[in-house]
């Protein structure tokens, strides 16, 4: 494997996440999911890669991919790696004007593996995409996922990422909001235990006026696990009346758990509303005592408080998805709290 092509913690955007270090432990070989897809169909000039400084993983995916999926209608994808595999899945999602699509992505695997995924999303005028990503990786699994979204006028992108097993994850999202009155909502729940590592790195480029973006991330980190949240909102000079909101809340359940948070706002327009908030703390002991004093057993009381902590991230989730989210949350809390 070409380790010299990988981003290292020397670059600012990878400061907290040592990918070469995580991959070094494993002996992996290029493999396929069997999706097929013609690499020649990939448009080298398609929105995505070119704009960024850290394009190494994107380029590596373009070189290596044997699995390409073109998506324009409702779909559910299971992306499962086997032991020893190095996969390079590529999702190319194009939603036509006025259409509404739901995509469910299930990320999992067995043994040691690396999935280096690229997701390219183009939303035409007034197109809507609800994108659910369930991540349940093995402890020795590595997932790097780069999602690029381009939104035209009146387009709506609504994503929820739910992580109940991390291994080693870099979830990078870049949204270009190019048309007026578009909305980009990125919600996430990261539940981390053991020595898992999960990095969420987001850039939102507000390039057009009257657009909104929302990020609500909730993290619960226990044992020796480590979470990273880097969120940047960049409001260009033309993007007047932008409403940008970013929130990252973390509960640390053990003294060795760690969370690194880096919110960034870069604003060049003068009539905008932007806010960001980041908190890292422990469970409210006073609230816990109140619940217990009413007869609720400690474990159940902790679960109740944690579920309520996570709830804002689920607010926009579809009714069909909620039961799965609740079940996964309960399962994780049962095991780790």
């Amino acid at each position: 494997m070409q380790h010299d092509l990988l981003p290292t913690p020397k670059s600012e955007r990878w400061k907290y996440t040592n990918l070469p270090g995580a991959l070094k432990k494993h002996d992996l070989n290029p493999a396929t999911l069997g999706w097929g897809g013609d690499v020649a169909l990939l448009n080298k000039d398609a929105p995505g890669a070119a704009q960024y400084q850290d394009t190494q993983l994107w380029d590596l995916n373009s070189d290596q991919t044997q699995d390409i999926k073109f998506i324009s209608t409702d779909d559910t994808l299971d992306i499962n790696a086997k032991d020893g595999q190095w996969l390079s899945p590529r999702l190319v999602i194009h939603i036509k004007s006025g259409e509404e699509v739901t995509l469910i992505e299930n990320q999992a695997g067995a043994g040691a593996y690396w999935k280096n995924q690229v997701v390219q999303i183009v939303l035409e005028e007034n197109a809507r995409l609800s994108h659910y990503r369930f991540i349940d990786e093995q402890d020795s699994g590595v997932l790097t996922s780069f999602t690029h979204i381009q939104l035209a006028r009146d387009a709506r992108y609504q994503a929820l990422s739910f992580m109940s097993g991390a291994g080693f994850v870099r979830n990078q999202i870049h949204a270009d909001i190019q048309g007026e009155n578009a909305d980009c909502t990125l919600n996430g729940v990261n539940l981390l235990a053991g020595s898992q590592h999960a990095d969420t790195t987001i850039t939102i480029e507000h390039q057009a006026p009257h657009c909104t973006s929302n990020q609500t991330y909730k993290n619960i980190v226990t044992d020796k696990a480590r979470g990273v949240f880097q969120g940047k909102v960049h409001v260009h000079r033309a993007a007047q009346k932008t409403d940008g909101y970013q929130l990252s809340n973390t509960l640390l359940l053990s003294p060795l758990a760690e969370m690194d948070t880096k919110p960034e706002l870069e604003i060049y327009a003068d009539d905008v509303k932007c806010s960001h908030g980041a908190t890292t703390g422990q469970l409210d002991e006073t609230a816990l005592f109140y619940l217990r004093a009413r007869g609720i057993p400690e474990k159940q009381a902790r679960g109740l408080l944690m579920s309520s902590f996570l709830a804002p991230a689920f607010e926009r989730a579809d009714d069909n998805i909620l039961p799965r989210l609740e079940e996964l949350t309960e399962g994780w809390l049962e095991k780790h709290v």
Partner: protein
Amino acid sequence: MIKIKNLHAEIDGNEILKGIDLEIEPGKVHAIMGPNGSGKSTLSYVLVGREDYDVTQGDILFNGESVLEMAPEERAAAGLFLAFQYPVEIPGVQMTTFLKTALNAVRQERGEDELDAIDFLKLMKKTCADLGINDEMMKRAVNAGFSGGEKKRNEVLQMAMLAPKFAVLDETDSGLDIDALKIVAEGVNKLRGPDRSFLVITHYQRLLDYIEPDVVHVLADGKIIKTGGPDLAKELEEKGYSEILENAA
């Protein structure tokens, strides 16, 4: 019902309760009055098992059995209840979820059947109606954004739902205007009965005009320095704490 014997308790190495003896019989209402810092709130927390406090000597017997080794939830199931001076706001947990979870946990411990959603709602609505509480409150998150009066009424509602045998009211009058105070006191009076005892903790005599105690104690510097009938509260109100404290010294 409850028997407190030579109770000493401390927090962070500071002794707050310095030997309290108190016995309350079934159906009786006792009041504890005392100046700020006398240990009133500490006593209420120690009774329901808050873990920040260490009991260093003495015992608390509830129907003859020591509760010192019991967790807060076990004490609640056994029938102890504290109406908090400052009820805790828990955004994100709905009142109905909270109350149903609590009630069913307690019922399970008491060997009673759990209530299903419909029976629970019926009981909740009836209890709200009995206490003159608008059940719209149940659709909100626990105490979140509640006014002072709403919070205290909510404590009384929880008490009515959980049906404890012994309830401690910690400065339930603090932060209430006279109308809110009357409503809360009325709620408490409805719950009085031959099998239920109360300990009413207050700084002022005002509350005791509405919840009439059988016995009044004065707490100062972690000890009960005087015990008497309802008249003692009135005497305190007239003369202030200083005279009684001096006479006791």
